[in-house]
């Protein structure tokens, strides 16, 4: 006799009430990061210099700004999912673990927001 409720079996979200969401999001973000990372590395390698003027001109192109924003957002998301698992694996005390997970989430949201803000600021010509 199974002690699982019929509703629980249908929803299939398990004890953590989250199902395969974490696993699936980690896969989706990793697939998205393949072209984004390759684009970013190749772009940096073909830039004529890392001087201020060159970088601003590069970041003001719409395609660069768009892809940089996507890179920052998806990388932060993927990183948060990954660091979360490491914290869950190695921090054993429940209180410290919860605190660490909240800090990890907040840090990543802050990084993503700051990155997007910086790209938009340059792209819309705020920088002199």
């Amino acid at each position: 006799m199974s002690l699982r409720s019929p509703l629980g079996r249908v929803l299939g979200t398990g004890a953590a009430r989250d199902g395969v969401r974490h696993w699936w999001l980690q896969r989706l973000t990793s697939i998205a990061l393949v072209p984004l990372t390759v684009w970013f590395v190749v772009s940096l390698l073909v830039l004529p210099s890392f001087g201020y003027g060159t970088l601003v001109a590069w970041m003001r192109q719409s395609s660069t700004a768009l892809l940089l924003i996507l890179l920052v957002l998806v990388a932060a998301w993927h990183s948060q999912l990954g660091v979360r698992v490491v914290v869950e694996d190695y921090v054993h005390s429940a209180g410290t673990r919860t605190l660490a997970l909240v800090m990890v989430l907040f840090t990543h949201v802050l990084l993503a927001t700051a990155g997007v803000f910086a790209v938009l600021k340059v792209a819309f010509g705020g920088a002199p």
Partner: protein
Amino acid sequence: MPTRPLSPHLSVYRMSRYTLATSIANRFTGMALSVGLLLLVYWLLAVAGGMQSYARAVRVLATPLAQLVYAALIVACCYHLVAGLRHLVWDTGHWLERAQSQKSAWLVVAASFVLILIIAYRLWFAGAHAP
């Protein structure tokens, strides 16, 4: 150690197995790239802050220590990318047999090494641009 029975831990695995080494390396490089994300955002904010803010950041970003960090990040990025692709193949149910996963472990190391060499060649021999 408690006297109650414990589930098998690190000591039961053969640490020299490259399948194990590649798995740990994937997690380790992932953590390194999280630090790289911090550096990326710092760099973007420095550019957004204007010419003087970027000049100040470059003084930090061009130190030998920072160069060492970039080298580590390039290695981590290449490895994590290739090892991640191997995970995606596993997710489709392929290459899961022991012999196949040992073979793909070597493939991952070889492929990431080739990527690292290409980037290093471009950076130090063909590119020659200073940060």
